C-alpha cells in the first residue's frame, strides 16, 4: 500500500514533469528564434594578414589612378553617378545575380582633395604625397598594407579591411594606393 502510493506519486510526478517539458517545447516552437549560426560562419573574418606589395604596384598611369579615385569616392555601383573609368564596372555577377559592385567609400572616413562630405574618422589625406611619402614618414608598402589589411598596423583599427575580405583584387588595391599617393591638382 505504502509502496504503491509512492509509486503512484512518482508516476504522477513523472507525467507532470513530462507534460511540463512537452509544454515548454511546444511554446518554444511558437516563438520565432531563427538560427543565425550558418550566416555568421560564412561571414567570419580571416585573421590579420601581412602582404608583400607586388612589383609595379604603385604607378602614375592616369587610368589606374582614375580607377583608384573612383573607388575611393564611391560606395557602390548603384549609388555611383558618374561613369566608371576603363577597367572598372558598376555591376558584377554573383551567384547568378547582377549585383552592384562595391567600392571603397574611403571618403566616408577620410577627407582628401575634392572630397564631398568627407568624414573625419580617419586622418585627412590631403597632400598625402608631400606630407607622408616625400618626408619618408610612410612608404608605398605601408600604404598598400594599410588599405589591404590595416590590422597589421593597428589591431584595433576602425578602418575597413579591403584585401583579406576579398572585397578587392590586388590590382584594385594598387589602383587605390596609387591614387592616395599621387600628386593631385
Amino acid at each position, binding site marked *: 500500500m505504502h509502496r504503491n502510493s509512492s509509486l503512484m506519486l512518482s508516476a504522477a510526478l513523472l507525467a507532470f514533469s513530462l507534460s511540463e517539458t512537452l509544454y515548454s517545447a511546444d511554446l518554444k516552437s511558437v516563438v520565432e*528564434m*531563427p538560427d*543565425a549560426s550558418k550566416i*555568421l560562419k560564412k561571414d567570419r573574418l580571416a585573421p590579420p594578414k601581412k602582404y608583400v606589395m607586388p612589383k609595379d604596384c604603385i604607378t602614375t598611369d592616369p587610368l589606374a589612378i582614375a580607377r583608384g579615385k573612383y573607388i575611393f569616392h564611391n560606395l557602390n555601383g548603384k549609388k555611383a553617378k558618374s561613369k566608371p573609368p576603363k577597367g572598372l564596372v558598376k555591376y558584377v555577377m554573383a551567384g547568378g545575380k547582377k549585383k552592384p559592385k562595391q567600392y571603397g567609400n574611403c571618403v566616408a572616413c577620410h577627407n582628401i582633395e575634392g572630397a*564631398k562630405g568627407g*568624414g573625419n574618422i580617419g586622418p585627412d589625406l590631403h597632400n598625402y604625397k608631400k606630407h607622408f611619402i616625400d618626408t619618408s614618414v610612410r612608404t608605398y608598402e605601408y600604404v598598400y598594407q594599410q588599405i589591404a589589411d590595416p590590422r597589421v598596423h593597428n589591431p584595433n583599427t576602425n578602418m575597413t579591411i579591403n584585401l583579406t575580405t576579398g572585397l578587392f583584387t590586388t590590382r584594385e588595391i594598387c589602383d587605390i594606393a596609387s591614387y592616395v599617393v599621387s600628386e593631385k591638382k
Partner: protein
Amino acid sequence: MRKIISLITASALTVSLSVASEQFSMSDADRALYKEMLENNPADIFVDEGSELFDEYVTEEALAKFLGVKVDDLPKIIATFPRYIPQVDEVLGLDQVMQIVMFKNGHKPFKLKSSEMFEMLAYAKSLANGEPINIDINANKKMQESYKLGEKMFMTKRGKRGLSCNSCHSNSVVGLILRTQPLPNLGDVNAAGTWPAYRMTKSSLRTLQRRFQGCMKNALLAVLPIGSKEMVALEVYVTNLAKEKDKKIAIPGLKR
C-alpha cells in the same frame, strides 16, 4: 489614412533630405521639419494601430498573466526586456513573448518582421513610457550569457569590409563624422528606449532590431534575422548601454 500620411511625409522628406545632405546630415530646414514632427510624430498613427491589434490579439491581462505580474505592474516589467522567460528557458524580446501570448489566446502569431508586429511592439513598449530602463543582465546565467554574446556580436569584425558595430559606435569615434553623419553613442541617444521609432529617411516605423539590420546592410555585415539568439543578445547589450546612462522609455521615437 496611414498610406496617405506616410506618402506626404515621404515626399516632403526625401526632397529636403536629398538636397541638403551634402555636408551635414540635417539642414536647417530639416531640423525645423524634425521639430515639427516631434510635436506630431507620424509614428503615433502606427502606435494607435498597434493598440487595436494588441487589444484584439494579446491584451494586457493575458500578457500580465503570462509574465506572472499584476496588470498594474506591466510597465515595470516591460522596462526589463529583453528578459529571461522561464516557460521556455530563453531570453526573449517583448515581440517574441507576444507571439506566445497570441498563441495562448488562440491566434496565429504575427511574424516578427511583419508590420503588424512592429506596430504592436511599439504600442506594448509604449505602455512603459516614462519607466527607467531596468534590464538586469545579472538576473541569472542565461541573461549573463546573452549579454556576453551581445557584447561579442558588437565587437566582432565581420563581413566584406571587416567592420564591427564597435568600429562605428565605440567611444573613440563617437561624435566623429562618417560621411556627413555624426556617429552616435548608443547609450547617450537612448537607442534602446526610443525604438520602435519613425525613421524619417525610410518613412516607416522601425524597431531596434530592424535598425541593427540597417547598419549591418550598410556596412556589408551579413544581415542576421530578427529574433535570432544573436539579435536578441545585441538588443540586450544595447539596452544595457541605455540603462547605464539612466535612460527612460520614450516610445515612439523619431529618427532622422
